[in-house]
């Protein structure tokens, strides 16, 4: 029989429909892979019993020809999505043991469509990080290795999602992207990841980090699989006032569109100093691939790019300090004993939050405090408008932008840990898109000289995920990326 953990979502759906294997067999194969690969630390909570029960229900629907869009597809859920009755931690000690009494809108849509839940995936604490090293439950290990053999980071914050898909532990996974948390880990692990337009997916029931930036999205091994996942995940939700009423198209219909005459912009400000030659080379290769398929390459300028990171590191911590004020030790989560109420708050929060989260709360509180609010926060909101206008201007001339996803391939665990700014630079190519609320996707395009995957990013106009997917599919077709990581949940037959 084919290796069930190596299927795509699309081919698994076909196999299930044709009764080549059962939903239970498919889910069981992934449970075995998940158990074999515990060393990667992808999952905070494993839920095999839930997955098998859902698989049984899916199979029953296949048997009566009532199968739903994603029936029987085993996925992982980033542990930032509240799941009714299953612990949801945001990878923080302060939420350890928290069992939601409700289901997030996006996860609920995926279960309704027939997905089976293998478990809750590890991440950076409250999604704050670019290496998955800030999780209270330990770092995730990238299944890819370079010749040094040392453990590499899977990217972050959705590092559990990216590593699990690359290692063939699940067919798809959810992620959230605030400044690059879907696209950068996808690039570091050689898989696809898409962040749709802000407002496409409901944020209801997702543990909040920075509400004006947070957006859910999908990870999978192919562009088509990401489109299939998005079809289910997107859509208006009355419970999220920023969720859009924009009609959701069938994203899979956009995949095989012609690239002839499409204008692809290359932002000159993304040629940053010190970019590794491999990244530079792959970027040029990407342009050639699109040209070969009939697209036109156009130089564009996004003049405020260099201010995106400092803008982000005002706005995101400000919103974080405000959102995380709710963790008070009273209503849910950790409580430390204190002499009085203030003592309880301070001890609970000092014990419950990790170092990076505390640092961001501190920065956020500082930039929002009396006397500094205008100089920092309002200033950042103004620059945010200029960054957004840069994109609007560029999209007057082009249909999509092509950039590298990250300035390097995966690095060793512990590297960059001592210098927050150096860590933040990982997101230099992804943060501007987030500030402008635009859709962006990372697609694996090749290996660097160390044998590690690199991704290219496609950025589109608001609500135009279809062009993003179409261009990403063009790159996928040309790159023909078939390399696999050294660690797999189920070893392939020799």
């Amino acid at each position, binding site marked *: 029989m084919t290796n069930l953990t190596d299927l795509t979502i699309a081919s698994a759906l076909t196999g299930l429909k044709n009764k080549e294997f059962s939903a239970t067999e498919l889910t069981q194969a992934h449970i075995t892979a998940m158990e074999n690969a515990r060393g990667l630390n992808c999952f905070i909570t494993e839920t095999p019993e839930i997955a098998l029960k859902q698989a049984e229900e899916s199979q029953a629907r296949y048997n009566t020809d009532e199968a739903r869009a994603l029936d029987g597809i085993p996925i992982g859920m980033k542990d930032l999505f509240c799941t009714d009755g299953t612990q949801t931690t945001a990878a923080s000690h302060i939420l350890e043991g928290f069992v939601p009494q409700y289901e997030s809108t996006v996860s609920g849509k995926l279960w309704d469509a027939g997905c089976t839940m293998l478990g809750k995936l590890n991440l950076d604490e409250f999604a704050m990080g670019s290496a998955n090293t800030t999780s209270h439950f330990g770092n995730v290990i990238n299944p890819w290795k370079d010749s040094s053999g040392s453990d590499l980071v899977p990217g972050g914050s959705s590092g559990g999602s990216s590593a699990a898909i690359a290692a063939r532990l699940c067919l798809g996974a959810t992620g959230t992207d605030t400044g690059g948390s879907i696209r950068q880990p996808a690039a570091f692990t050689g898989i696809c990841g898409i962040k749709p337009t802000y407002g496409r997916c409901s944020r209801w029931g997702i543990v909040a980090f920075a509400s004006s930036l947070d957006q859910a999205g999908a990870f999978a091994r192919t562009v088509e699989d990401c489109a299939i996942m998005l079809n289910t995940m997107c859509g208006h939700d009355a419970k999220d006032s920023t969720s859009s009423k924009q009609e959701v198209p069938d994203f899979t219909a956009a995949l095989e569109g012609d690239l002839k005459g499409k204008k692809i912009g290359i932002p000159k400000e993304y040629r940053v100093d010190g970019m590794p030659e491999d990244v530079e080379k792959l970027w040029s290769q990407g342009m050639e691939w699109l040209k070969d398929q009939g697209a036109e390459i156009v130089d564009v300028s996004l003049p405020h790019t260099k201010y995106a990171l400092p803008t982000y*590191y005002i706005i995101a911590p400000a919103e974080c300090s405000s959102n995380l004020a709710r963790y008070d030790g*009273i*209503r849910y989560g950790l409580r430390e004993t204190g002499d009085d109420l203030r003592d*309880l708050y301070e001890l609970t*929060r000092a014990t419950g939050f990790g170092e990076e989260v505390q640092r961001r*709360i501190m920065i956020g509180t500082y930039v929002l405090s009396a006397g500094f609010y205008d100089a920092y926060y309002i200033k950042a909101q103004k620059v945010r408008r200029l960054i957004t206008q840069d994109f609007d201007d560029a999209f007057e001339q082009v249909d999509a932008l092509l950039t590298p996803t990250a300035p390097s391939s995966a690095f060793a665990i512990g590297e960059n840990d001592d210098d927050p700014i150096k860590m933040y630079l990982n997101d230099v190519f992804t943060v501007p898109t987030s500030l402008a609320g635009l859709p962006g996707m990372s697609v694996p395009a090749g290996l660097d000289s160390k044998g590690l995957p690199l991704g290219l990013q496609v950025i589109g106009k608001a609500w135009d995920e279809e062009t993003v997917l179409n261009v990403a599919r063009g790159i996928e077709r040309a790159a023909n990326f078939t390399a696999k990581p050294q660690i797999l949940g189920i070893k392939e037959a020799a």
Partner: protein
Amino acid sequence: MSLTRDDVKKVAGLARLRMTDNQMDELLPKMNNIVGFIEQLAEVDTDNVEPLANVARSTLPLRTDEITDGECRDKVLANAPESEEGFFAVPKVVE
């Protein structure tokens, strides 16, 4: 502009984070490093630019002012570290 030890202490108090002297000493240069980084924005000309609070490309919806949920006290209390008689329990706040 750089922060002082007293600034860090004040901000930690506002953020309700208990910090030891050692932690504040360690945090001070890191915060100053980050503040120095974000201060680059001062060089951007933002005269006559409106602040952008949210990129949601739709107007906020209105709905009828009516009760749409409730009757779920036990669910609300399910994760409380301490509850009594259907209420959250906290340390004594009034003598």
